[in-house]
């Protein structure tokens, strides 16, 4: 009996479904693997980071001793008023048994060297405090912070700890009296960099990144989109446009440090723009993201169906009207996605910033495009390189902040795409 076609088809079916099933399994495995890596990344960074969102504080009864402060009526003398002594005095009062000079020094080192700034600010806000006693929570030193958070073993030998037995004893007493406490670390989100981990914050770097990204967006998006539109819709296809296209594709693959060198040569040396400024950082990032945006925008323009173009031309729209009234709105979601992906890449970039001086220790939070600034990834890099143990968790926390921004930007890309696509 000879086989009919349908028999042959049926025989092959099993094999075909098998192939399909295997492919699905591969797919699920691939996705599972990437999810596992992602989860691993988040968990490992997250577990390191979450403690950075808290900070150990010590409660002191600060007595604004008029004798120590001296004349507080005018600004000049207030600037030189000895607030550190006020803080130290308050701490020493809690432990009257501490008498020797070296012990006093050990005791006062439990409180952050920056605590006096907070007391000073408090006083400047309310000069009537002179002669008064106030209860204040002040940040503890990073060594204390690490100990309280359990990052440092209390059990190891005295010589190997950064805190000696005396200091441990005092900390335990403070703990017993409820005068030491972990609280939400507002400092981390509101200040710039510092060499003291307990005073270091991410806000300076976030602002720097923000200004840099604004400049990048303002330049790279219009220029990129205009270039893409010109190349795709207006330029005659000839050898020159081919050369340009090849070059743009090449640029997209050039290592980012090269753009840093270019920025150094052009913006700093030739135009004489200031070093370490978000403006220059943004311009360098513009150079870097431009090819990405041009390529994405051209792809978006290409994907607009030709029937729409013909329809527009058919009713007598000019080339320009066709592009701006019909093609661009349809291509915009794709362009925005490209722009945001390019920006996200720029947000995570440090190498080009090194060349233009944005890898730097900058304490003051930048307030404009020409103030010296760093960026988020640079801050991560700098903290990761600091010897103090306290910066370890700060590094992870900064990575979390950066990841949050990246996720937010990519989510924005998805939302924008959805929004524009849904219109019709």
């Amino acid at each position, binding site marked *: 009996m000879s086989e009919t076609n349908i028999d042959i088809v049926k025989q092959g079916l099993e094999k075909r479904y098998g192939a399909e099933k295997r492919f699905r399994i591969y797919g699920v495995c691939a996705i599972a693997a990437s999810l596992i890596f992602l989860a691993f990344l988040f968990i490992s960074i997250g577990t390191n980071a979450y403690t950075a969102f808290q900070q150990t504080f010590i409660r002191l009864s600060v007595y604004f001793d008029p004798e120590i402060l001296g004349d507080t009526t005018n600004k000049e003398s207030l600037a030189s008023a000895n607030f550190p002594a006020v803080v130290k005095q308050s701490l020493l009062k809690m432990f009257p048994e501490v008498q020797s000079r070296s012990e006093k020094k050990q005791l006062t080192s439990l409180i952050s060297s920056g605590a006096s700034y907070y007391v000073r600010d408090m006083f400047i806000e309310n000069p009537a405090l002179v002669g008064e006693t106030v209860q204040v929570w002040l940040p503890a030193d990073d060594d204390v912070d690490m100990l309280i958070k359990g990052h440092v073993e209390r059990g190891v030998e005295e010589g190997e700890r950064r805190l000696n037995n005396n200091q441990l004893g005092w900390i335990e007493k403070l703990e017993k009296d409820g005068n030491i406490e972990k609280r939400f670390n507002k400092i981390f989100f509101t200040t710039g960099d510092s*060499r003291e981990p307990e005073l270091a914050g991410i806000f300076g770097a976030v602002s720097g990144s923000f200004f840099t990204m604004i400049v990048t967006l*303002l330049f790279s998006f219009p220029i990129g989109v205009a270039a893409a539109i010109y190349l795709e819709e207006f330029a005659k296809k000839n050898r020159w446009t081919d050369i340009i296209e090849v070059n743009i594709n090449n640029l997209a693959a050039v290592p980012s440090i090269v753009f840093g060198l270019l920025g150094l040569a052009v913006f700093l040396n030739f*135009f004489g723009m200031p070093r370490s400024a978000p403006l220059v950082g943004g311009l360098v990032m513009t150079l870097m993201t431009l090819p990405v945006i041009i390529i994405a925008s051209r792809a978006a323009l290409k994907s607009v169906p030709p029937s729409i173009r013909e329809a527009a031309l058919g009713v007598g729209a000019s080339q320009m009207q066709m592009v701006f009234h019909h093609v661009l709105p349809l291509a*915009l979601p794709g362009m925005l996605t490209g722009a945001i992906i390019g920006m996200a890449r720029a947000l995570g970039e440090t190498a080009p910033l090194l060349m233009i001086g944005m890898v730097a*220790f900058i*304490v003051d939070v930048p307030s404009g495009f*020409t103030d010296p600034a760093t960026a988020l990834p640079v801050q991560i890099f700098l903290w990761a*390189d600091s010897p103090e143990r306290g910066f370890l968790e700060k590094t992870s926390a900064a990575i979390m902040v950066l990841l949050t921004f990246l996720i937010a930007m990519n989510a924005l890309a998805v939302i924008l795409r959805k929004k524009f696509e849904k219109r019709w």
Partner: protein
Amino acid sequence: MKGKKIFAGLGVAAALTFGAITFNSNAIADSARDYISVVGSSTVYPFATVVAEQFGKTAGFKTPKIESTGTGGGMKLFCGGVGVQHPDIANASRRMKKSECEMCDKNGVKDILEVKIGYDGIVLGASKKSSAMNITRKELFLALAANVPEPGGAESVVPNPYKTWKDINPSLPANKIEVLGPPPTSGTRDAFVELVMEVGGSEFAWIKALEKADKDKFKSICHTIREDGAYIEAGENDNLIVQKLDANPSAFGIFGFSFLDQNGDKIQGTPVEGVVPTFEAIADGKYSVSRPLYFYVKKAHVDVIPGMKEYLKEFASEKAWGEDGYLSEKGLIPMPDDERKSFSKDVQTLKNLSCGDL
């Protein structure tokens, strides 16, 4: 039509910013910078930043901006010229080279103040979990050089045959040689090569003789570190080395003393020639692997950039670089009293450095 509006809006915004920017940058180039700009060594960075922060919070000036560019990169920027677009101070983890001084001179940076700030020890660290091992610089040279003197005693080099420490010296443990260290771009590596490898190599009389006779050969023997896996380049990040040592007790790591200081509960310093790297041992010069740290000041800027004098004063104050100063808390090894005094005087008088002295 919406597309057009967005596009036009962005275009206008870009044009405006560009206008504002060109205007601004001109304004900046013309007017004086109101903060101090510091560049240079990543080894000095942790100390300079502490001073800068202290200065910024108390002196009433803006906080200086400190870039970590490496010593060589910093010198290049520093010697670029006089004017607000050039940095005011360069940090260095070694003395300025004569060639650098001459480059400065050529670019109009004629008057330079040199300030030594203290010392930094280079430490061969290991995990606390391992038992301490006493080592000499000669042994380190034999363990890490790419080519070592022929073990039989002939005056020639062979590719490094040593696999374990015991191979070098029978009294050392039979552990595999495994040293994590910085890459050639790092200042710590430069210092290590100079302070350990050159000295260790010079223990062999014929190599020492080469230093005079054939400098290139001497350098190629002493400066070339093996690449067969015994020496692992761990990147510029000293923290990473510390973490890796914790995970691998049989390995050693090369890094700055401040990292040992901050991680004393996890890492121990290996004694070199019997001297444990401690604060005191480095300070009084007993521990041999240490180097001086410097910064260089462009004198032409001292009266132009606000706060320069005050910053120098802060740096050269006892409360900063003194025995109990805050820099020592960060791991800087202070200079002896008389050396401090002499440099502090230099700061006051803005003593001029002449290239001939280098």
